[in-house]
């Protein structure tokens, strides 16, 4: 059951991703990306990451992709891409992609993850609540990176303003 769910959702995610890459129209690509993200959100849920899944839907599939679509519309570009000018690029890309995949699959053996086990067993998470635990972790162990993201966002804001504003 779980496996079947995984496989079907995984297939949707892959299809979404393939759609992003293959669809001619940028809007269609964006919609495929949303599909992909939603599918991933489901997988996140299966991995006991409820909070992240929610955030994925709201922030990512929602806000960020809307921004994408908005820009696509704003630029209103023709859907068709011009003629491919780099012969072999596609072939190379796919061949190398296959190799990369092969390398990843080669190492992704079933008896993996002998890493340091954490204390957050499923039971414990169920007890403490996923959102609470993640939130507390974010503000304790990860408080420093958390604060750094604010700086990152500041950079993004300043940068976006600098680049996109017509007149500074």
């Amino acid at each position, binding site marked *: 059951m779980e496996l079947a769910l995984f496989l079907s959702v995984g297939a949707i995610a892959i299809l979404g991703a393939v759609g992003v890459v293959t669809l001619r129209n940028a809007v269609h690509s964006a919609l495929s990306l949303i599909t992909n993200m939603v599918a991933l959100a489901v997988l996140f849920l299966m991995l006991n990451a409820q909070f992240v899944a929610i955030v994925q839907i709201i922030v990512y599939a929602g806000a960020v992709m809307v921004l994408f679509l908005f820009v696509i519309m704003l630029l209103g570009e023709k859907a068709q891409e011009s003629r491919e000018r780099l012969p072999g690029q596609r072939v190379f890309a796919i061949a190398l992609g296959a190799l990369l995949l092969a390398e990843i699959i080669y190492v992704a053996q079933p008896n993996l993850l002998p890493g*340091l086990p954490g204390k957050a067993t499923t039971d414990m998470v169920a007890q403490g609540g996923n959102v609470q635990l993640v939130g507390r972790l974010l503000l304790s162990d990860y408080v*420093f990176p958390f604060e750094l993201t604010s700086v990152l966002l500041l950079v993004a804001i300043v940068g976006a303003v600098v680049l996109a504003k017509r007149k500074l």
Partner: protein
Amino acid sequence: MDFVVPTVDLGSIAPALLVLATALLVLVGELFTAPGRKGALAVLALLGVAGATAKSFLLWGQSETAFGGMVALDNYGLFFGLIFLIALGMTVLLSVRYLDQMDMDHGEYYVLLLLATFGMMLMASGTDLIVIFLGLEILSLSLYVLAGFARTDLRAQEAALKYFLLGAFSSGFLLYGAALTYAATGTTNLARIVGFLAQAGVAGNPLLWIAVGLLMVGFGFKVATVPFQMWVPDVYQGAPTPVTAFMSVGAKAAGFAGFLRVFLYAFPALSVDWTWLLAALAVLTMTLGNVVAIAQGDIKRMLAYSSIAHAGYLLVAMASNSQAGVSAVLFYLVAYAFTNLGAFAVVVYLARQGQEALELSDYAGLGSRAPLVALAMTTFMVSLAGVPPTAGFVAKFYLFGAAVEAGLVWLAVIGVLNSVISAYYYLRLIVIMYMREPSALLALAESTVGAIFKI
């Protein structure tokens, strides 16, 4: 499950925080300075640099970790911090007049420089892959924007776009590497990775290998080793010259800061393998950088290839995987910072209203037009070539010394031979400055090509 809020030890990252605070001050100050008076912001930025520098010296010799092992206060980080501050300070100095002449005198410029420096300092002192990644992203985002700061310049835009796309692409690899490291070891903290590997060994954990490889790709992009170097010439050429200077010194140093910290500290257990790979990359990087630099006619592009080559030299030291190697990298970066910034300073100095002297032929006859500038440029070129009695020589001396000490004599030999190749194009600038007449521009172009093929 218990959570311990770590001690918020701001003192340990005080220099970085000073830089950040300055950035915020400048951002606010931008609102209150009239156009054309932005030089005041530069002064403010310099004050911040001075403060951070002073603080770094005060902290010198201390050794502690903070924020639950996310960052470390150590001489390594402080030293890199000082390199970044040097780069920052000199870039700010270079920029004031340049921005004015190029008509892009905006306070955000300084803000982004300061924020980028903040990111660099985090990369140098972060001891967690996530912190290093965030520092790298702060740095990169700032630089993407700075590269395109000349917003109406098509080349600058192109540089920014290329830098951005490739940067994001490669940081994806870096992040994937971090994720697989996490998967393989259960942590992203360097100290704990060391501890885990020491206890569990590396055998039978293939994820780790992929993880290390991906990290290498990410850092390799940042420090511009072959084959991850392709962005460098285009971006260096398109970006505003002071930004190029800053990138070539600061960003490269930051990349090495993270690279060294992660590989030499966290993954010595795998060093047998990655040193060989690094050695191979070093050879490719040095050689390609130097060989292609010969064929360049634009000084910024030439310096870009030269900086690729220098990354190759630094990899030589890194491949020697020793204390001496680290010291060599540090010293080399300092020497390189001064000389490379100096070279770019000359390029900036020769810029005139809205126009820059970028073709090598623009430098013809500089020896008689501006003898002191030419002398300075000569010194920088000689130093970059690593000829005594310059700092560049001493740096190379340390660097190849480290390689020899580590038994990588062959690598040192290839390195020194590369520095001979590099001498060719550095010397060519000297040739042009002193031995060509400025009038005969056409003749020059031809004879330069001729000389290239003659040699």
